[in-house]
């Protein structure tokens, strides 16, 4: 099957050796992605807060990674490379979502600042407030917070994944934590 697809894509003049090399490359790719799949899916789901969209994000990341797989010179860097593709894909999805749901986000922000009285316990109220405040954050801030507090990445690690300066990571974290702290303190009152 792979052979026929390869022939279709490159003009049908591939030698047997080339086909074998491509099949070997595909097998290598499958192995590398499979090893990362659970962690990738979990991270995507945490960033996006949507399991179905997380599946799409991981699949899209796998497709993008496969198309650029031939450019990857060092297989030891696959994990970091795939991680970067996935996180950037999730960030783009959050941005799209934010653009399409601007009104809802504003409403969620209001709700985060004024938690509902009917919450069963303080802990539940606090977490509800945090959930809403987290969703109301800017997409880039959500990604940074998730990488810091879920993936336990350091500031340099986050900067490396997102390819942004460390100062930008610190600034985004500071801004996001301020919003989350305000939501937490509001829920505790």
């Amino acid at each position, binding site marked *: *099957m*792979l052979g026929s*697809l*390869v022939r*279709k*894509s*490159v003009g049908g003049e591939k030698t047997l050796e080339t086909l074998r090399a*491509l099949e070997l*490359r*595909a097998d290598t*790719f*499958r192995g590398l*992605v*499979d090893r990362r*799949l*659970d962690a*990738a*899916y*979990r991270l995507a*789901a*945490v960033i996006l*807060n949507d*399991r179905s969209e*997380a*599946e799409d994000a*991981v*699949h899209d990341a*796998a*497709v993008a990674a*496969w*198309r*650029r*797989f*031939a*450019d990857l010179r060092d297989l030891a860097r696959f994990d970091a490379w795939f991680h970067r593709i996935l996180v950037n894909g999730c960030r783009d999805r959050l941005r799209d979502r934010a653009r399409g749901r601007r009104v809802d986000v504003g409403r969620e922000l209001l709700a985060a600042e004024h938690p509902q009285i009917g919450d069963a316990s303080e802990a539940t109220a*606090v*977490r509800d407030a*945090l*959930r809403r405040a*987290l969703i109301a954050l800017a997409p880039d801030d959500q990604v940074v*917070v*998730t990488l810091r*507090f*879920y993936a336990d990445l350091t500031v340099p690690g986050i900067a490396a994944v997102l390819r942004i300066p460390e100062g930008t990571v610190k600034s985004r*974290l*500071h801004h996001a*934590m301020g919003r*989350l*702290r305000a939501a*937490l*303190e509001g829920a*505790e009152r």
Partner: protein
Amino acid sequence: MSERPNDPRLDQELREVLRQRDPGAAPGVLRSWVQDVPQEAGPTRSSQLRRPLAAALGLAAVILVGVIGVTTIGHIGPVTGPGASVPAGSAASPSAPASPVTAFDPTLEGPGVSGADDFSPAILVVLACVVLGALAITIRGRRRLLPGTAAALLAGWAVVGTLVPLTVDVFAYGPGLNVVRAPQVPGSEEVLFYELAPASGRFSVGLGFLADGPLPVRIEGIVSPAFDHRDHFIGMLLTAVWIDGEPNGGMTGPIRPFAPFEIPRSGQSVWLVGRAGACALGGAFDPSNPAAVGGFQSIESPDLRVSVLGWPRTVHLQLPFRLVEPNPGSCSGPTPGPSSSPPPSL
């Protein structure tokens, strides 16, 4: 983040909120989709070809930039100062530009005049920009900044070199060998020089150049279309340019063969050397009785080949005088000169 008293709680609650989002292991369907990616997506052509394409484009870009460099390096090379004087009396061929042992000899042909205009690097620059742009698209990451920057620099150089305003004026002039100034006609402002060299003899006139523009202007030579056919051309013809070494732009310094030079702020004088036409009257002409000859041939104002920041351009040089050569009117030579006119009204 950790200096606030409630930050540990925020840290803990935030981690808990995020942990609650964690769905656990990937579903089997996703694993199946991902395993099928190599079959369904297929290795794209661009992925397979990108590396050799980038290498080919990079090589082409290097070659093009190299060719541009070689073709323009002569325009931005070291400039011989106008004060580089020449020991007088030591005769040598002026075919060696700026030779320190060559003395002025207006009877010799020399450098400074060319027949055809130089090849413009514009097409090479456009090609190089296209190749560099394609290279920037082909490669990934911050490395693409390199060809992008190179293309921007090349384009900027071409735009500045082409569009920067410049003029070259003649601020001084005078007759040289075998040239005399005609008596000024009352009421006329035209300055007339008679070229009185014998047939196919040499003549010279002096010119002082002054450049006006925001960037230094380098004189590369004089363009004379007839120069390419000088062996068969029998009219009046410019054959060489010599540089006057007087530092303040005057015409009394030591003279050396032409080599490209930047026009200093104080100006720079040169001597245009020419060959008289095959039908020239020479000394037989009486300037006090110009109507006694058959006709006059005049030399047209030439074009100057200059460069700005190494970018070659051509500007028209408007001579402030009219140089004419008297001839008997009928001549047994094979062709007439570039323009022939009746005697000037004196």
